[in-house]
C-alpha cells in the first residue's frame, strides 16, 4: 500500500479516499509513480458534490489496473498475447461451466454425474446449489486450476508457468467439455467474447506493427 500519498495541504475527501482504494487495482510501482496524477484526473472529472466513485470509472480502473498487472507480469503487450488469451478464455470457460450448471438444474446434474458412473443415484432433484456441489473431481480440479491461472498474472506468477498451465487446461477443457455433455458452443462463445474483452483491456488496440515504431 505504497500509493504516493497526496496530502498536499488539502483535506482528504471521502471521494478521494474511495478512489484511492480503487487504485489498488494497479501494481504498487505504477501507483507510486502515477497514482497522484490519476487521482487528480479522477477528481477533476467528478462533478461537484459527488462523494462516491462513478461506477464506469471504477470499472475502467479495475480493467486498466489488472491490464497493467498482466503487462508487468508477462512483459510488454504482444509478447504473451496467446498466454493472455488462453488464460482469460479458460477462466471464462470455468465460470461459464459453473454458471451453466447452476441454472440448468437436475438435468445438468445428471449430465455431469454420468461420466463418473455410480453417483447418479445420489443426485437429488434439488436446488441449483446441489448441482454445483456435485461436480466430479475433474470439474473441481479444472475450476481451481482455471481460477489460479486467471489470478496468476495478478499475483505475479511467471509467464512460462502460465503457458504450461494454459496448455494443460486447454487439453483438459477440450477433453472434458463434450464428454460431460456440457454445452460446448455457449462455452466457446463466452470464452471467445471474454478473451476479446480481456485482450483489448490487456494490450489495448492492435498496435500497428506491435509496438514497432509506426510502420511505414
Amino acid at each position, binding site marked *: 500500500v505504497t500509493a504516493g500519498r497526496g496530502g498536499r495541504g*488539502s483535506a482528504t475527501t471521502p471521494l478521494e479516499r474511495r478512489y484511492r482504494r480503487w487504485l489498488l487495482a494497479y501494481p504498487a510501482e505504477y501507483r507510486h509513480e502515477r497514482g497522484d*496524477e490519476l487521482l*487528480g*484526473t479522477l477528481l477533476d472529472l467528478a462533478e461537484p458534490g459527488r462523494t462516491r466513485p462513478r461506477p464506469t470509472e471504477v470499472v*475502467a480502473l479495475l480493467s486498466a*489496473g489488472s491490464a497493467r498487472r498482466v503487462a508487468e507480469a508477462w512483459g510488454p503487450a504482444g509478447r504473451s498475447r496467446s498466454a493472455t488469451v488462453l488464460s482469460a478464455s479458460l477462466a471464462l470457460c470455468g465460470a461459464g461451466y459453473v454458471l451453466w450448471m447452476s441454472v440448468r438444474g437436475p438435468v445438468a446434474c445428471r449430465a455431469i454425474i454420468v461420466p463418473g458412473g455410480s453417483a447418479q443415484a445420489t443426485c437429488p432433484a434439488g436446488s441449483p446449489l446441489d448441482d454445483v456441489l456435485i461436480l466430479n473431481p475433474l470439474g473441481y480440479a479444472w475450476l481451481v486450476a482455471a481460477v489460479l491461472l486467471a489470478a496468476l498474472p495478478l499475483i505475479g506468477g511467471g509467464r512460462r508457468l502460465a503457458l504450461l498451465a494454459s496448455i494443460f487446461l486447454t487439453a483438459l477443457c477440450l477433453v472434458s467439455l463434450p464428454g460431460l455433455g456440457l454445452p460446448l458452443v455457449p462455452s466457446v462463445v463466452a470464452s471467445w467474447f471474454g478473451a476479446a474483452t480481456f485482450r483489448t483491456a490487456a494490450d489495448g*488496440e492492435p*498496435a500497428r506493427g506491435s509496438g514497432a515504431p*509506426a510502420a511505414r
Partner: protein
Amino acid sequence: LTVYIAGRYIYGMAAALQEPTFLILTALAERPLHGYGVVQEVEQLSQGRVRLRAGTLYGALDRLAAQGLVAADGEEVVDGRLRRYYRLTESGQTTLAEEAERLARHADAAIRRLRLRPAPGAGPA
C-alpha cells in the same frame, strides 16, 4: 481460438487507429494538455459521444508513450491535484497526419459513391 488469434493478428497488421486513440492524438495536436484537458477536448471533438474514463485514458496514454507518439511535458499542482501535461511527438504528428489523410480519402470515396447511387425505386429489377 486459433482462428480468433489468427484473425486478430491479420486484423492487427492492417488496423487503423481506433477512434479514441485518434481523438486523443487530435486533442494533443494543437498544444500539450493534461489528462482532464484531454478528456474534455475529446468529448468536444466527438460532440459528446466519446467520454473517456480516467483508467481508459491513462491506459491509452501509456501505450502511446511506449510507441513514442506522445510524451510527458511538465507538470503542475492545482488545488492539491497533480496535473501532468502530454504533447504530441514528431512521430505522433506523422502518424496522426497519415491517419487523417487515410480517413479523408475514405470519406471522399463514400460521398462520391453515394452521389452515384441511383434514386430509390430506380434500382435493378
